[in-house]
């Protein structure tokens, strides 16, 4: 099995545990980062859209099982996240962190879409306008997630010509 698959898989499990047990305690006014998206975005950018979509589904399903959340809810949103991030796959870039600003922008928009899909099932019954819903549930978590990802810039590797 490809080493990077194992690395991404282990990273996901570790980040899922952190997301589940630690992130709730660093939330700011109920806005929290969605760090389980980091391996999904990284995987999609390094392996392509097809594999990224599958990884998103598997990761989402694992997170649903671990967290006690509704089965399928994270599987669907992370599948779409993997699919979306895969659009920006570039075969010539061996390390998705190399163009780090681009990585952060992709992460921001992927989180925006993922959190929106993830919370749409709860939109029914709320008296919120869609703009307020978008801000609270998607834009702020996306900003927080991108901010949390900034230290990853130190893990950039030298680009190899492939």
């Amino acid at each position: 099995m490809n080493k990077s698959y194992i690395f991404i898989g282990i990273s996901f499990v570790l980040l899922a545990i952190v997301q589940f047990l630690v992130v709730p305690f660093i939330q700011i006014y109920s806005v929290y980062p969605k760090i389980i998206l980091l391996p999904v975005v990284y995987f999609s950018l390094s392996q392509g859209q097809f594999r990224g979509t599958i990884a998103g589904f598997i990761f989402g399903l694992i997170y649903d099982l671990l967290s006690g959340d509704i089965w399928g809810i994270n599987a669907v949103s992370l599948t779409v996240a993997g699919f979306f991030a895969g659009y920006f796959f570039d075969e010539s870039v061996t390390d998705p962190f190399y163009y780090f600003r681009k990585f952060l922008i992709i992460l921001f928009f992927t989180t925006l879409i993922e959190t929106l899909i993830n919370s749409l099932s709860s939109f029914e019954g709320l008296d919120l306008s869609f703009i307020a819903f978008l801000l609270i549930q998607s834009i702020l978590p996306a900003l927080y997630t991108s901010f949390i990802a900034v230290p990853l810039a130190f893990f950039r590797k030298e680009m190899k010509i492939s």
Partner: protein
Amino acid sequence: MNKFLRYLYPYKEYLLLIFLVTLGLFLQVINERQGSSKARAAAFGSVVTAYTVIESITGLLPENEEIENLRIQNARLNLELNMLREISDENTSLRSLLSLRDTIQYPFVAASIISKLSGRIRGYYIINKGEQDGIFTGMPVINESGLIGVVSIVAGNFATVRTLRNPKLRIAVKNQRSGIGGILEWDGIRLIIKNIPTNYDFQAGDRVVTSEFSTLVPPSIPVGVAAEKEEKISGILSNIHVIPFANFDKARNLFVLKVTLDKEAEQMIQQAGNQPL
């Protein structure tokens, strides 16, 4: 056939997306079935090991028996204080007094939050007490300040709590001063009691407590304070905004009241139905 597959090949990513999203939605539909909730409970119980390891490493939630006892005492005193407020109200009926006494007598189980699922829209907590501690679905959960929510899924050592910040949880409440009742719900930003006739005596600053009509929680558990009365366009009805006593963002230690009113009510209805008229 080969030609057909070759035709579809360029669209494989889209087809995969449609297939996986459909599968995910199918799983969500299955969730609604009765049997799957047990499987969900068993699955999320799998975090036990991770939680135990992380707790032992980080000591995020250090618990001390003395502190725990003090918290229980604090919560009990808070309920008692609320009862005394109620007694001082001349309009309090004997029936509600009896109910209040019962509320205080319910046994408490102290629990710690190990995770808060989602933020402002889908409010769930996961607590470190479950079936083995005598906790069942439907039990009310409070902290030292007031009502937090209701237990929704129970596993061996863990349970999920549907908090007041969940649009799916609606609780019958009343104004402690005037006795005016209503249904409290979460609109995504605030807790509100909808459609209270404008001429009813419901003012900003009034304390809101659980009502005798609630089939989920015992009466007179403090919920919050009425902050604002928002008149609707028609002018006939108003929405009351309620600020909860409990701080949902900072809550860490909770108490589960060992009572399931909905089951008791259900049993009583069944018994009444079996008796000849």
